[in-house]
């Protein structure tokens, strides 16, 4: 009976259902149960379930599916706060960790910038060796992940990648991307919006997976092994989230690079004709208009 039910249930499962059933929510519940009751306990539960009447078996499975689905839906609603946590915007007492972590990142970035500067100066006077060229390319790529001004550093990799994009738009165009993003979004072509939405969806999914890792700490009340597993889970999710964060950041920055003019036109502001300081001043004026209602 149980096998028939499972066969019938999984026959048409696709897309989101499969993701929900075998995604991080499933790992959280299955892993937690495994830790709390142990493999033998879980096998005994299963055996006991099989001895129940068919209706009770179905009832238990439906209840399990409901819990799984409801918890996945709740976590889906928490994507934005989870992403902010992943970015390093932490509540107290975690906030106490911010300063030392940022100091470590600053030290690393300063060293990389010094080396990058030295290689660029050397390149002016003599050709770089192949190894130096590779190192320069690596540094160029790596430094993209950090905000230009070190005062804007965040304690996490994802936080720095997203902050770098936000601050670049401010430094280059005088526009505040956080404030202006909803307006620009409405002016973007359909294709651009699709690409950006897809990139954001990938990032949000990993933020959600990271959130499940955080929740996994709950099982530590019953089984201390849950702590290293949860930490490993969170580290892995945070590491994996760097790539979609880069994609999302590069697309949002590209949207400002390419379509920021539409903001000026749509708001009936004069389009800046010169780059540099003139454009930054115009961008600041437009940002102020949106934030304060006065240019």
């Amino acid at each position: 009976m149980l096998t028939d039910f499972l066969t019938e249930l999984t026959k048409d499962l696709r897309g989101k259902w499969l993701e929900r059933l075998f995604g991080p929510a499933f790992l959280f519940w299955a892993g937690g149960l495994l830790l709390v009751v142990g493999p033998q306990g879980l096998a005994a539960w299963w055996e006991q379930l099989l001895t129940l009447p068919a209706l009770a078996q179905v009832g238990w499975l439906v209840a399990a599916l409901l819990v799984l689905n409801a918890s996945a839906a709740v976590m889906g609603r928490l994507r934005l706060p989870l992403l902010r946590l992943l970015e390093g915007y932490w509540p107290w007492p975690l906030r106490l960790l911010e300063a030392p972590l940022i100091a470590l990142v600053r030290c690393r970035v300063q060293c990389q910038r010094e080396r990058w500067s030295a290689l660029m100066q050397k390149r002016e006077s003599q050709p770089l060796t192949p190894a130096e060229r590779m190192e320069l390319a690596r540094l160029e790529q790596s430094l993209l992940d950090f905000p230009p001004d070190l005062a804007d550093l965040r304690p996490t990799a994802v936080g720095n990648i997203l902050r770098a994009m936000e601050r670049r738009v401010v430094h280059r165009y005088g526009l505040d991307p956080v404030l202006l993003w909803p307006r620009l979004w409405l002016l973007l072509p359909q294709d651009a919006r699709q690409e950006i939405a897809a990139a954001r969806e990938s990032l949000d999914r990993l933020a959600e997976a990271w959130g499940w890792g955080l929740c996994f700490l709950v099982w530590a009340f019953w089984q201390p092994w849950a702590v290293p597993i949860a930490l490993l889970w969170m580290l892995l999710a945070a590491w994996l989230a760097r790539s979609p964060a880069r994609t999302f950041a590069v697309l949002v920055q590209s949207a400002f690079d390419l379509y920021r003019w539409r903001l000026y036109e749509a708001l009936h502001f004069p389009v800046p004709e010169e780059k540099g300081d003139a454009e930054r001043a115009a961008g600041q004026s437009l940002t102020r208009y949106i934030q304060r209602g006065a240019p």
Partner: protein
Amino acid sequence: MPDLSPETIYRVFRDLLDEAPASLRPEIEALLARAEAGEKTDNQLLRLARRDPDFLQRVNARLEMVGGTRGFSGLDAPGSPPPGFSDLPGPPSPTPGLTYVCPQCDYTRVLREVGEEPGECPTHHVALIPQAQKGR
């Protein structure tokens, strides 16, 4: 985002039949006739439109207009998300940076981009200035 139904695809192709290139028209008509007979030919129609970029553009524009975004993105892997942007795997080639110098000596520092703090000269402890400003 909602996927367009085969019926919508058939409707769009029927609407655009007169605008279709002459070389494609007989095949479109044949596929639409098969669709009317109950056969599913929406993907074949979309594939056919691919042969003529102008017509393809018109089809996609019309599909978007009627409320969906399927176009060709969902053709090759039905049910899967459309193939999206991905970065090129190679490293970017570094263009010249922003050169800052000490106003009192030859100390030089190259910045990667606008917004970076130039810092100060380690010997004279004065703020570095853009190279273009030195000697003015």
